[in-house]
């Protein structure tokens, strides 16, 4: 059995999500190959070759692959897929965008967002915002899968030395064109990779007030996240959103500030190891899943917490 993981990368380096997808492939068993499609993407391929557990790296270079548009990437993966029992991608906006295209062109089902491997054809996946777990068996010859990052601890980025094989690109269909991107820049860790997350909700009242959380995050080495309500209100950009249809996170510590705890938000963070909730409403559902709750005014509690952490840091 040989499995293909489609790497998420920015041509220069692998994204951490690729390591989780490699780990899921390893959990299924068999030889793991990684496809790096890109433009001048050899550095990313070299990084993939070092990942522990990778048997071979396929490198396909083509100007059209620079932004990994779904139409072009899917055409390449479909050409390679018959050599594999499984095709895996991270369940990020990258993987979700192209993988169903691959499945449809192969005339197979896609198994979305798997959180467990039962056997090479049977997988566990959350449905209904994680309020139920379905165990599904695929009858198809090739299994196309997207992987829930938080369910598979990342494969080690070093320790391997896989050969890199160049594969031919597939001519672009010219169906779509990359126009531009506005990527959030931050010195803080990425949400899906952070050990600690400080998240704000509607209770923050304004985007300006998120400065309180940023200060706290900087003392903890944390990322800053948000609930849908805070994003919809325009307090913070969309890439902050944690939840059923945003980012799924499972850090060591998740501090929910001014978040009431709608099931759609809980779906994105309830697998965190420790949850802290700060909310003025004692009845807020977030408290039911929080390990430590504080009832009170966040505008008083957050600065207090900030000061307490600063005090202990210096002492």
């Amino acid at each position, binding site marked *: 059995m040989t499995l293909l993981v489609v790497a998420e990368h920015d041509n220069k380096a692998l994204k951490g999500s690729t390591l989780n997808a490699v780990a899921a492939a390893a959990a299924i068993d068999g030889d793991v190959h990684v496809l790096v499609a890109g433009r001048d993407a050899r550095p990313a391929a070299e990084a993939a070759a070092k990942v522990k557990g990778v048997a071979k790296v396929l490198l396909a270079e083509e100007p059209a692959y620079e932004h990994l548009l*779904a139409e072009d990437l*899917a055409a390449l993966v479909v050409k390679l897929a018959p050599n594999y029992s499984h095709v895996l991608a991270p369940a*990020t*906006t*990258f993987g979700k*965008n192209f993988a*169903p*295209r*691959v*499945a*449809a*062109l192969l*005339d*197979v*089902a*896609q198994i*979305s*967002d798997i959180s467990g491997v039962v056997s090479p054809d*049977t997988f566990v996946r*959350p*449905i*209904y915002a994680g*309020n*139920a*777990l*379905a*165990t599904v*068996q*695929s*009858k198809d010859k090739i299994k196309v899968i997207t992987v829930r990052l938080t369910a598979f601890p990342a494969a080690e980025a070093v320790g391997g030395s896989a050969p890199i094989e160049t594969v031919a690109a597939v001519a672009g269909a010219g*169906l*779509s*064109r*990359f*126009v*531009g991107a*506005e*990527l959030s820049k931050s010195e803080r860790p990425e949400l*899906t990779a952070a050990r600690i997350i400080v998240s704000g909700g509607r209770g923050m009242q304004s985007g300006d007030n998120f400065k309180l959380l940023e200060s706290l995050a900087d003392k*903890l080495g944390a990322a800053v996240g948000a609930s*849908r309500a805070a994003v919809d209100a325009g307090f913070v950009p*969309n890439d902050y959103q944690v939840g059923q*249809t945003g980012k799924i996170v499972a850090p*060591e510590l998740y501090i929910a500030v001014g978040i009431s705890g709608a*099931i759609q938000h809980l779906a994105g963070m*309830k697998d965190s*190891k*420790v*949850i802290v909730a700060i909310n003025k409403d004692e009845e807020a559902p977030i*408290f039911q*899943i*929080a*390990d*430590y*709750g*504080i009832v009170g005014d966040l505008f008083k*509690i957050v600065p207090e*917490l900030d000061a*307490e*952490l600063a005090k202990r840091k210096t002492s």
Partner: protein
Amino acid sequence: MKVLVAVKRVIDFNVKVRVKPDKTGVETANVKMSMNPFDEIGVEEAVRLKEAGVATDIIAVSMGPQACQETIRTALAMGADRGIHVLADAELQPLAVAKLMKAIAEKEQPQLIVLGKQAIDDDSNQTGQMLAALLGWSQGTFASKLKVESGKALVTREIDGGLETVELKLPAVMTTDLRLNEPRYASLPNIMKAKKKPIEQLTPDALKVDVTPRLVTLKVEEPQKRQGGKKVGSVQELVDKLKNEARVI
């Protein structure tokens, strides 16, 4: 131009779903059903295209049991012109839905097909991409902005790192994200008018599509419950607990 909008009937987003004791699925009897929220956003976007003079004809498509006609009526009340209902009582998985949508698209020849990026029941996030692939069309998924001009669609997409804009050749498939728009409530006169709008009924057989499920659900279980609910009285106590009990800071 003609626009197709897919609308799925799902358990309402406010309902706390319960797993059936026999582990075959979740309880749907006597549970409030609604249009998938992402599909509402899709209908709204289509209606706005029509109001802007870009779309001429909006067709709302739903698939599943007879009750899906209620979901189509909701779309008609929001401003869609007519409906198509594919009657199917058995389970329809995303690949089957994409194939049925393709058959309808070949009949109706729309320039744009709008779907929600994901349905909040099975959380698959597949159908739009599959449909685009089967038709050989371009796709703009997770859209937060759409501009249609001179045979092209400019779609701004919500991606993990921020926003990305792509230009799509029409015809194209677009899937909606939350920030695309805020769907309107249907007014009473429009709800009355919607009752007179036509809904065509089709079947998978008539569309010559094999809808046999490819994935077999072996069981559905409840996830482990978190033991939460503890409260602390002060910030000092919280920091102590995080340091010495949970050991996470």
